[in-house]
């Protein structure tokens, strides 16, 4: 499974949550800012646990943060 199949709306969700910075989100879910950046750019697919934590920070279901497109 390549990372290209999974897209995400983290950038938009951060914008909608008062321009939350990558560093703020990283601190909330316990990863580095660089990891949030890699996830946003689709270079890294997070673990299920981290994905759920990101969704919980924004208060939305997982599928509103990550979208899986079948190739």
């Amino acid at each position: 499974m390549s990372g290209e199949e999974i897209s995400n709306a983290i950038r938009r969700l951060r914008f909608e949550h008062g321009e939350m910075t990558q560093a703020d989100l990283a601190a909330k879910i316990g990863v580095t800012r660089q990891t949030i950046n890699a996830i946003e750019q689709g270079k890294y697919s997070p673990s299920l646990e981290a994905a759920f934590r990101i969704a919980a920070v924004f208060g939305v279901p997982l599928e509103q943060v990550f979208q899986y497109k079948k190739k």
Partner: protein
Amino acid sequence: VSFREKMAWVSLTLLLLIYGYYAWTLYGMAQAGRTATLDYVWLLALLALLVLLLIVLQVVFSVVIAVVTAMFMPADLKAREDEREKLMALKATRYGYVVLVSGALAICLWIIYGGQEFYTANSLFLVVVLSEMTRSAVQIVYFRKGA
């Protein structure tokens, strides 16, 4: 650039410089034809000194980088190693292991077919250093690439 990426750069650079110097010294000995009459106690003492220097320099650089990071990016310093960094470290170790095992097997064959101890012993040491350098280099590539 994260704190751990900076440390990977430091590790790779120091390995290159310190063991580069050691390799250069050995090359000089080989050129002078001193490989058969070599004083191995002297060579081991030089190696021990260089390993000690490597450890001291790594500690010094990690303290300097930690202080600078604490001043300008305190969050980076506090951040624990996360899942992506652990994954990158594992992948990098796998590449380093391939270099180590391939090199060790090649040197075993070399010994069987009569390799001189000066060359085989130092080549084995070189393989250990190369595997460590591969680990740091692959880690840096992953840091740059994403994961």
